[in-house]
């Protein structure tokens, strides 16, 4: 066996870089007698972008596997609990227009598809209220667990909102002190190939040559290795997802005990949408918009109109402008180089897909780590197939939020509803779902970033109509469905009695901590 993989070099120390380092090092530590060396080089001169603050429930297991205490993470990263997303003004744009995409699966989801029964049996409730408890928990700003619930376990499913800057620092400390990751603060000045055009080393400003066998590009949108060095082209999806700019602000709470929302709030605007994420000490609020459809000034004034409900002095806020090209690289893995994070691609943070993609990319590399160069092309092919598929599904799912809108108040919304701007794959699914609601077998992979349940929440949240089945439902099927709708109503009430306010739980975690068991 020639060219054994012994050293992995990660370029970039933002969220993606440290998540990757942590996942690889923790996996090696757990499974191997002689773990691979994991090195992370980070430029002291490049600021991290650090606005990614929404996550998926996968992060719970990711942190646990790294050996991190949930209590420490919550205390040090300003983290709060996220139970889903509330989409306001996406369907009609009216003031009372909203729906939820919660994180729990519909009741009985492994047994029964409640979607076809909802119109006949439970349409007095919103779809998400009819099939799960989480909308009512979110509306009352409840926590998904109690102080006596062990770390990483939930009574309702949850992920986190976090301060991305603090999170990267927190992970860095853990990776370096607990997982043996070598941290090099230096600039990469040149990338060196060997005669097979594999990267053999990086020339650095002060540390000489940094050699490695596998190089992971977490250098952000500029993609130092995959794009600048290997010239891998970019697949833009701008003609599907129009948003390409963002203005972000940080808004303090009015006092230390202000209630904290238990979900992301996404409010549609004339040419994009505004995110609102509640951390412990502040909210992150920002406007994502399409530069084809509005100007920066207009986008800022729409953001300020929204912020006006929160803050008195709008001029006291710092506004951070971000510009991005939505899409992903044609290849995510090339030779012995693989991109994770914004170097791989980026789309608007509508469903918090950025951190979860970094997690599952790093996890796949950890589990399928090529032992030597001979097998590298095989893993490369697999990885590219898997993640090209994931990017396509994410783009489909994000576009779904726009394609189903009934808003006609701006060109942005009209353009979004034009089927020619939707991927063929999405149009096909929508044609299918007109007659039969989404169910487990609609997708190719055993593990999907967005399961069929997510599609159900968005479709029926946005008022999409699936025709009733002309064959009807058997009595036993209808009875089972009625049983589950009823059970959901009861358990919603029980959970409301049982679960504390979000802020109260966060305060208790600071005061007492959560137990590991």
């Amino acid at each position, binding site marked *: 066996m020639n060219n054994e993989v012994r050293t992995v070099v990660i370029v970039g120390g933002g969220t993606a870089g440290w998540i990757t380092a942590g996942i690889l090092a923790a996996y090696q530590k757990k499974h191997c007698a002689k773990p691979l060396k994991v090195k992370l080089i980070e430029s002291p001169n490049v600021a991290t972008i650090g606005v990614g603050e929404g996550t998926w429930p996968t992060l719970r297991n990711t942190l646990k596997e790294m050996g991190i205490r949930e209590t420490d993470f919550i205390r040090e990263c300003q983290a709060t609990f996220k139970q889903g997303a509330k989409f306001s003004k996406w369907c009609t744009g009216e003031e009372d227009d909203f729906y939820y995409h919660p994180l729990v699966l519909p009741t009985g989801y492994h047994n029964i598809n409640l979607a076809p029964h909802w119109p006949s049996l439970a349409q007095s409730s919103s779809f998400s209220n009819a099939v799960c408890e989480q909308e009512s928990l979110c509306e009352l700003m409840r926590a998904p667990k*109690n*102080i*006596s619930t062990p770390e990483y376990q939930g009574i309702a499913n949850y992920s986190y909102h976090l301060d991305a800057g603090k999170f990267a620092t927190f992970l860095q400390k853990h990776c370096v002190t607990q997982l043996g990751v070598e941290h090099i603060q230096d600039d990469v000045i040149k990338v060196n190939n060997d005669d097979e055009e594999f990267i053999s080393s990086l020339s650095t400003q002060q540390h000489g040559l940094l050699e490695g066998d596998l190089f992971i590009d977490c250098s952000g949108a500029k993609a130092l290795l995959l794009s600048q060095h290997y010239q891998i082209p970019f697949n833009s999806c701008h003609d599907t997802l129009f948003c390409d700019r963002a203005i972000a602000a940080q808004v303090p709470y009015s006092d230390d005990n202000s209630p904290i929302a238990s979900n992301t709030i996404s409010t549609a605007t004339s040419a994009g949408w505004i995110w609102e994420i509640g951390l412990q000490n502040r909210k992150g609020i920002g406007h994502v918009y399409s530069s084809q459809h509005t100007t920066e000034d207009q986008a800022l004034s729409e953001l300020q109109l929204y912020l006006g409900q929160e803050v008195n002095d709008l001029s006291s806020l710092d506004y951070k402008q971000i510009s991005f090209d939505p899409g992903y690289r044609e290849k995510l893995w090339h030779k012995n180089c693989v991109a994770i994070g914004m170097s791989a691609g980026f789309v608007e943070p509508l469903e918090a897909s950025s951190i979860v993609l970094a997690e599952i990319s790093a996890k796949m590399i950890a589990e399928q780590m090529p032992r030597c160069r001979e097998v590298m092309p095989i893993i490369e092919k697999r990885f590219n197939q898997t993640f090209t598929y994931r990017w396509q599904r994410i783009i489909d799912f994000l576009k779904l939020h726009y394609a189903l809108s009934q808003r006609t108040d701006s060109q942005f919304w009209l353009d979004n509803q034009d089927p020619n701007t939707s991927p063929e794959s999405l149009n096909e699914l929508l044609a299918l779902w007109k007659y039969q609601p989404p169910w487990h077998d609609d997708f190719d992979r055993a593990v999907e970033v967005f399961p069929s349940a997510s599609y159900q929440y968005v479709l029926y949240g946005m008022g999409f109509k699936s025709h009733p089945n002309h064959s009807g439902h058997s009595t036993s099927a209808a009875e089972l469905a009625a049983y589950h709708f009823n059970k959901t109503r009861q358990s919603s009430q029980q959970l409301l009695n049982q679960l504390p306010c979000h802020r109260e739980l966060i305060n*208790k975690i600071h005061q007492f901590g*959560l*137990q590991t*068991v």
Partner: protein
Amino acid sequence: MEQIQLLDFQQHANLKISQDFGVQHGDNVSSIPVLVNELEKLVLDYPIFFIKDNETGQFGLHVLTGFYPEQNLYINNGLWNSIYLPLNISRQPFLLGKNDDNTANQTVPILINRQSSRINTHSGHAIFESDGRLSHYMEQVKIDLNRIFRGAPATQSFIQFVSQHGLIESVNLDIQFANGKSECFQGLYTANCHKINQLKETHILDGARNGYLAYMTLISASIGNVKKLLSVA
């Protein structure tokens, strides 16, 4: 009248403490907080568990006395059916005050909870002899209070040790009642003695010297007493 008073012969000379048990005294509880320095005695009668405080999520050490809220299976017709009575029961209605921080002799004042339904003037044990000395009964309570005084910080350190080193594990109590009904009780935790071997040597030594490892064994062994509870359930 103040609820908590300093114990005083002048004021409390003719008070008696009734020695029966029941709902009237609030004894109908399904768990009782206990201390590490009574574990050796408790293990003869009670199943001992770590139970989380609902408000703080922190572990406390308890004996289980019933399966359902307000059920105390050790009480029967006003009597407590066990060889040993937990300190937190036997001390009642007395408690310890705080000594002023600069007193050298470390005496801690004894307080009496005047709201306790156990206090009366006609039945039970007297607190004082007629000459003002503590009664034999009260001398015994004083010993109990002293054991609580010494046991409380030791119990805290023990719980901290086992939590910190991951030596607590949850127990799912699957109970089949005599009437055929079965139920699974959650929220109970015991000591995981097998994990001791995974500790660093310094921690094992620390645990052995402080008696923590012995406490763990007692707690773990006490689970068998659930059968005793069940026999009267």
